[in-house]
């Protein structure tokens, strides 16, 4: 009898022992000095891996670039060269003009999308953002195809105006650079500003009008100030993207134009002056860091919810003739400007030199030809790119998930860790590439380097996709699950995981498309006679060589890239939940 009670007591004791992992960690916590407890212990452990990764493959290469240039008076000397000053000035200048033009076109478009309901609205809005996920080489190829001297636009104009020579000579001009920038970034403005605008309560403007303000006055004094946060965010972002624009300047602008990014590349690859390249990298980092800080600052401000309404409630169908015309112009404009280049690209890849439809360019892809500028069949480049993309999804996804999980819980760590994790977004890929060839030269022959570069570039996108969703899970949801009987692990499985699942898909697709299209860093690292050429590099090389077959193969690969990225984008749209405050 006594034994039984003893046994039952023992059983009860054992049953009540905290033997699960969370309690184990609690146990560890209890052993730590009070200051370091639960708040920092577990998160730090999880963060170790991403932090180490960033330290080794981001900060270390960058610091090495610093070291290279601080050994001499190189910085002062280089920066004072008139050529360099011109390059820096041009970088700012074209970014500012690009941003201005994008805003000028993007704001009315954002307004129309935000306030009006019309058939095909959602599809059109998605189409407007497709350019953003396109690799720069694809965009370059598309614009060359459409607006080139032998392109359909010129052909049509020549026929119309009875001219012998091309009417629009846009190749390697500033105009085509600006056009490409607008093409890229219009979607950013439409999404960021339009999304915010759509959620704004229209009653505020109505209240202003009742109080006697004309529509223009109401816009100026009510709407515009409220739109300031997303406007500034969007402007900064577009400025950042055009400031660090590489592929567009290099491929569309040609040798006459140079920004800091392309100059870094040229100084290193063409002029064999790593010192100068390093100095320019420092400049680049400094500028982008300032821009990123500003952006982060404005991003916080725009996160304040201001009397939001559900989007559908604030939209109306277009009623007056003016409104209808505006919407029509919007539809035509977007189709014409944003969709046509890509369609033309696809179409031209099927058109032979004699003007007839052919699959010749596609058929040439698996063939490795002697004297070809790539020593491997182009199709192998496709395979390489896909392989890298899949691996990038895994590595960037894993590291990004760890980081997001920790950054999502409120803690004092977060405030200065989050900008640190976002830095790779602002650091130019070219600078990164330079850092790698300078620092990690031992790894240069390893296919790993490209993977590391891609992971770094994709990492901020993954975190950015996961973080808002994880942060959006209210603590009361987890508490409710716990009260209803879910153990901590069960809470994670029933609450966190399903909610984050969709975001994970979005993050995966982001990582995939970013890796596929990565050009800046890879152009430094990939060597032509190595087996790990990627599609963008191959396309670039084909584009830089004359000859219809080369050009055609470039188009064929670009089309493949384009289709995959577009499909990825459609997937992102399908699975993404959040509509406010993207990026």
């Amino acid at each position, binding site marked *: 009898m006594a034994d039984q009670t003893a046994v039952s007591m023992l059983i009860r004791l054992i049953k009540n022992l*905290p033997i699960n992992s969370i309690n184990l960690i609690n146990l560890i916590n209890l052993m730590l000095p009070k200051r370091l407890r639960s708040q920092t212990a577990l998160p730090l452990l999880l963060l170790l891996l991403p932090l180490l990764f960033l330290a080794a493959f981001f900060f270390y290469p960058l610091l090495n670039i610093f070291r290279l240039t601080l050994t001499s008076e190189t910085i002062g000397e280089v920066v004072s060269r008139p050529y360099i000053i011109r390059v820096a000035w041009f970088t700012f200048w074209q970014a500012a003009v690009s941003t201005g033009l994008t805003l000028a076109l993007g704001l009315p478009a954002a307004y129309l999308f935000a306030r009006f309901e019309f058939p095909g609205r959602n599809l059109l809005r998605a189409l407007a953002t497709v350019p953003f996920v396109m690799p720069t080489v694809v965009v370059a190829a598309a614009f060359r195809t459409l607006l080139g001297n032998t392109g359909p636009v010129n052909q049509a104009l020549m026929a119309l105006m009875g001219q012998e020579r091309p009417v629009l000579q846009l190749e390697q001009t500033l105009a085509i650079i600006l056009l490409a920038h607008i093409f890229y970034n219009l979607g950013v403005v439409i999404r960021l500003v339009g999304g915010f605008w759509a959620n704004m309560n229209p009653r505020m403007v109505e209240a202003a009008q009742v109080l006697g303000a004309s529509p223009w006055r109401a816009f100026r004094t009510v709407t515009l100030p409220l739109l300031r946060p997303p406007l500034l965010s969007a402007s900064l972002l577009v400025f950042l993207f055009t400031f660090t624009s590489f592929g567009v300047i290099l491929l569309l602008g040609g040798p006459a134009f140079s920004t800091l990014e392309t100059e870094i590349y040229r100084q290193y690859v063409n002029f064999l002056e790593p010192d100068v390249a390093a100095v320019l990298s420092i400049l680049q980092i400094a500028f982008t860091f300032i821009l990123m800080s500003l952006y982060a600052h404005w991003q916080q401000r725009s996160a304040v919810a201001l009397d939001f309404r559900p989007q559908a409630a604030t939209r109306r169908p277009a009623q007056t003739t003016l409104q209808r015309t505006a919407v029509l112009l919007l539809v035509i404009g977007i189709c014409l400007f944003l969709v046509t280049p890509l369609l033309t690209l696809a179409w031209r890849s099927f058109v032979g030199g004699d003007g007839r439809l052919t699959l010749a360019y596609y058929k040439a892809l698996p063939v490795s030809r002697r004297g070809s500028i790539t020593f491997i069949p182009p199709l192998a480049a496709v395979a390489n790119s896909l392989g890298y993309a899949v691996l990038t999804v895994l590595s960037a996804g894993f590291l990004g998930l760890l980081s997001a999980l920790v950054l999502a819980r409120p803690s004092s760590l977060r405030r200065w860790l989050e900008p640190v994790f976002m830095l790779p977004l602002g650091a130019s890929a070219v600078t990164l590439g330079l850092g790698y060839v300078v620092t990690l030269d031992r790894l240069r022959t390893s296919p790993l380097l490209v993977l590391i570069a891609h992971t770094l570039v994709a990492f901020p996108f993954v975190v950015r996709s996961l973080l808002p969703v994880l942060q959006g899970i209210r603590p*009361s*949801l987890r*508490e*409710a699950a*716990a*009260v*209803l009987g879910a153990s901590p692990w*069960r809470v994670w499985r029933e609450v966190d995981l399903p*909610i984050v699942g969709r975001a994970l898909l979005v993050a995966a697709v982001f990582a995939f498309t970013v890796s596929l299209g990565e050009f800046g860093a890879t152009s430094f690292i990939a060597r032509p006679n190595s087996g790990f050429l990627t599609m963008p590099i191959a396309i670039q090389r084909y584009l830089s060589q004359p000859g219809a077959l080369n050009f055609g193969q470039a188009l064929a690969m670009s089309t493949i890239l384009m289709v995959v990225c577009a499909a990825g984008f459609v997937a992102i749209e399908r699975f993404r939940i959040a509509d406010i405050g993207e990026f």
Partner: protein
Amino acid sequence: MLRDVSFEAAEGEVVALLGPSGCGKTTLLRIIAGLETAEQGRITLNGQDLTNVPVYRRGFGMVFQDYALFPHKTAAENIAFGLRMARWPAVRQQERVAHLLEMVGLSGMGERAVYDLSGGEQQRVALARALAPAPRLLLLDEPLGALDRALRERLMDELRSILQQALAEVEGQEKVTTIYVTHDQEEAFAVAGRIMVMNQGRIEQSGTPLELYRSPETPFVARFLGMDNLLPGTVVGRRPCLVETAIGRVEVDGNCEYEAGSEGVVLIRPEAAEIVAAGQEGKNELTAVVQDISFRGRYQIVQIAVTKNDQITPLKLSFDIEQPLPEPGGQVKLSLLPEECRFYDGS
């Protein structure tokens, strides 16, 4: 911060924790639920010490202020969540969910997504979810707080009947005890059998709604219950208890234990006043000017102003709807019943 809080709830009772924001009532509720730990103290249920039992093993039900419905599950899936955790067989789960949907008046809406439901509907799903596993203790954290006034009034009555129905859910189980947290005195009075008024981490008074209303034990409780007529005063007589205030010498209920000269506060309950007819006399007579009369159905709230020694004191009194009163601006002679006046020592 909670200080020296101690209370018991009997099986089947509905106890309300009533108090202003920041008084600690929600903290207390969360400690009971196990979502937070107290530095000192114990929680016992039927003699079983639950202080160290983790939240997911306590078998309680809780409705959160923001409902905390799982957005990625339907209404039925939400309600079934606790049943799944307790591993009920699927058939019994379905039956129970259907039964609960009916009980809260949402039959047939099980397949709706959470964000398709209105505020009132969400609140009912939250309640059904908490009740589904037949918890021994039900914790409600300002469940009507997020609703607009009309809906709140309606749901207050429904809630009471749902809780009573849940109480009647025997099935061989004990009756559900409920702890209800709110800052709204009306809600507490409508739903609870016993109310504990909390202030800055302490329980100021505990009693039935009637007890609280009849004799609030501190000025804080009186003010919280909507009794505004609190006048500073000094004791000038002990038997009967007389207090000198801004409106004159007031005789209050009972004999004073307080020394003459003690400072404190006099509460004049809204029902304390009677109209003195011409030629009659009454205790605590005063002459006042009627300022405003507001009809509230069975009674009328009268705002008067008493002038004495160039000082104007407003009082809010309640009269039967049939009681004739002068128009606003007119004079009226009143007497205050001593048994409806009370003195609190201190200020």
